[in-house]
């Protein structure tokens, strides 16, 4: 249960104040699947970072499961990021010299959990990368890297997974794969999924779409999920029919 009350975020740029968020009120219930949309500069990423406890609001109250997050210490915030939240970035944010299994196990290391590799392997399996466990990020495609990042976000068994433009760096085929994983996590495990996007095709997968403009929520509507928008756009990369003609 996420509850934001009059959340503002103000940046100082020289002598000027820029209001990235100008007073956001938002509630997200457990088990929801929603997209936050808006043009660039609308403040949607800032909003997502605050919800993900990566950034702090300048004003307002953020309650996560009834806890006022703005009052927590650095260590308590780290614990929330580690145990309750999973965050997926547009640029994946994997550690460059670590193999996939170690990346996924990292949140468990900071938690001090046992059976790390087994749990991490199960998470990799869930995103279909169990045979890429010893690959480093440079040896993986963009879609595979983002799936590793998703596995890392869900390995700690969080109640909420947040994502900032998770498909922004991916083509529509792999974007579909990523949204399918999110849909399954939401439907089968009841994990709350909230992500930022500016692509309507991606937002169409969700059941709720929140629109942000100039740091304010301008619309908040339920949506009937569609799952077929992305797939027909092009063939799988290794389709046999495409090979000889493409070279000629």
């Amino acid at each position, binding site marked *: 249960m996420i509850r934001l009350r009059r959340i503002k975020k103000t940046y100082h740029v020289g002598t000027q104040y820029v209001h990235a968020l100008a007073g956001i009120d938002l509630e997200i219930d457990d088990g929801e699947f929603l997209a936050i949309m808006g043009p660039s500069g609308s403040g949607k990423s800032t909003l997502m970072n605050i919800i993900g406890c*990566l950034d702090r609001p300048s004003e307002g109250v953020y309650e996560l499961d009834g806890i006022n997050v703005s009052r927590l210490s650095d260590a308590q915030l*780290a614990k929330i990021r580690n145990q309750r939240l999973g965050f997926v970035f547009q640029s994946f*944010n994997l*550690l460059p010299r670590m193999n996939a299994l170690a990346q996924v196990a990292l949140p468990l*290391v*900071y938690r001090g959990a046992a059976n790390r590799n087994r749990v991490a392997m199960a998470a990799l399996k869930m995103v279909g990368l169990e045979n890429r466990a010893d690959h480093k990020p440079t040896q993986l495609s963009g879609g595979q890297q983002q799936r590793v990042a998703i596995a890392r976000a869900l390995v700690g068994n969080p109640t909420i997974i947040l994502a900032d433009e998770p498909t922004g760096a991916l083509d529509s085929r792999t974007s579909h794969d990523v949204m399918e994983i999110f849909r399954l996590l939401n439907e089968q495990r009841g994990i709350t999924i909230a992500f930022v996007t500016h692509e309507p095709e991606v937002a169409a997968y969700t059941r709720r779409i929140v629109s942000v403009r100039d740091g304010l929520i301008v619309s908040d509507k339920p949506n009937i999920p569609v799952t077929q928008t992305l797939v027909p756009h092009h063939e799988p990369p290794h389709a046999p029919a495409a090979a000889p003609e493409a070279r000629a």
Partner: protein
Amino acid sequence: MTLIDIFATSVAALRSNLLRTFLTMLGIIIGISAVIVLTAASEGAQQGVGDRIRGLGSNLMFIRPGAVTTGGVQGLPGSGPSLFLEDSNAIAAQNFEYIEGIASQGTAGGPGSPFPAQAIYRGQNVSTTLVGTEPSYQSVRDFYVASGRFISDDDVTKKALTVVLGANVAEKLFAGKDAVGESVRIAVGPGRFAIGFNFTVVGVMEKKGASTTGDQDDLVFVPLPSFQARVPFIRNPRGFTNVSQINIKLADRGEANRAKEEIGGLLRERHNVNEDDFTIQTQSELLSTATDVEQSLQVLVVSIALISLFVGGLGIMNIMLVSVTERTREIGIRKAIGAKRVDILLQFLVEAILVTLLGGLLGVAIGWGITRVLERGLDWDINLLVASFSLSVSDSSKYLLTPFWILVGLGVSAVTGLVAGVYPAWRASRLDPIEALRHE
């Protein structure tokens, strides 16, 4: 996060960029090995010089002629012809009860002398220091012949052309053959102005080693009157016998001050001067002078060592600062998935400790290796340094590794490594994760 996790994380980070790790360690390796080599050389030289002065025998006192002032410029002690065999005889005639023995000597050739001296035998040719002295020299300087005999009273009376060779001279000229009975030509003077005479070898000295005034095994000894008669530019116009040094062996070291006073008084009276035209040095004074010189040498050497350590430290700081700053994004990622501030700090702390420790141990090992190599015969470096302070430390220079300087080296590099590695990590760990993540 357990300690094993932190350790594993740090090791993985160090292994993932071996070049950077090596460059960081290089500063420490160079700094510490420099400290170790330089301080080992300085400590070794200090001990060596002390040993040599003590090796002269503990109860010695030396009288040397005073400095000559020419045109307002004061020369070195010993440059003036103001000490004579007659002075020595007068001291002996007083029968001071604290004098155990007395021996005068005149010297030509040797390090720093304007008159080079050479010993020549069948085309073999050795630089030497010609010492004219008396039979008592053996017991006063505690320096005896190994074969044959030393200069006798008879040699002195007859101004005989007899010579006793130092061990090195005999070795170089005769290469193991018996030298006694052979004839050696001794030439004194610069180049073609050298004047030479044939002397008969009557003995060879035992091996003694270096002293404060050069290697005693490079000396050759002749009777003092022969020396006086055969080396013309040392002749004294007043008919006295010039000597360059009177060696006095005291029966009791406790009498050194009284001896200095009474002998000084006697010499002033004989020379009819108010101001001393001679200097009297006891061995402890010599030792303390040498120690002073050594200490200033050590200050010099240690400053050089500390500067190189400091430069090494700057190298570590540079690479650490850059590497931690470029890893700000990594810190952001780690924080985003649940790393606490203390987890980040510990990771970088352990990384810095591992790098400095490993580099430090390598530095100690390399420094130790270098001292071993230098000790094995490449003794040019420290001897040059020591020679420029006019202390003679010849073939037996020692290197003394001291735990103190090893600890200082390790300590300084560890501190620089920690400061440089942990400070930027601490700064980055305080950022909100999103700010660290935005860092490019």
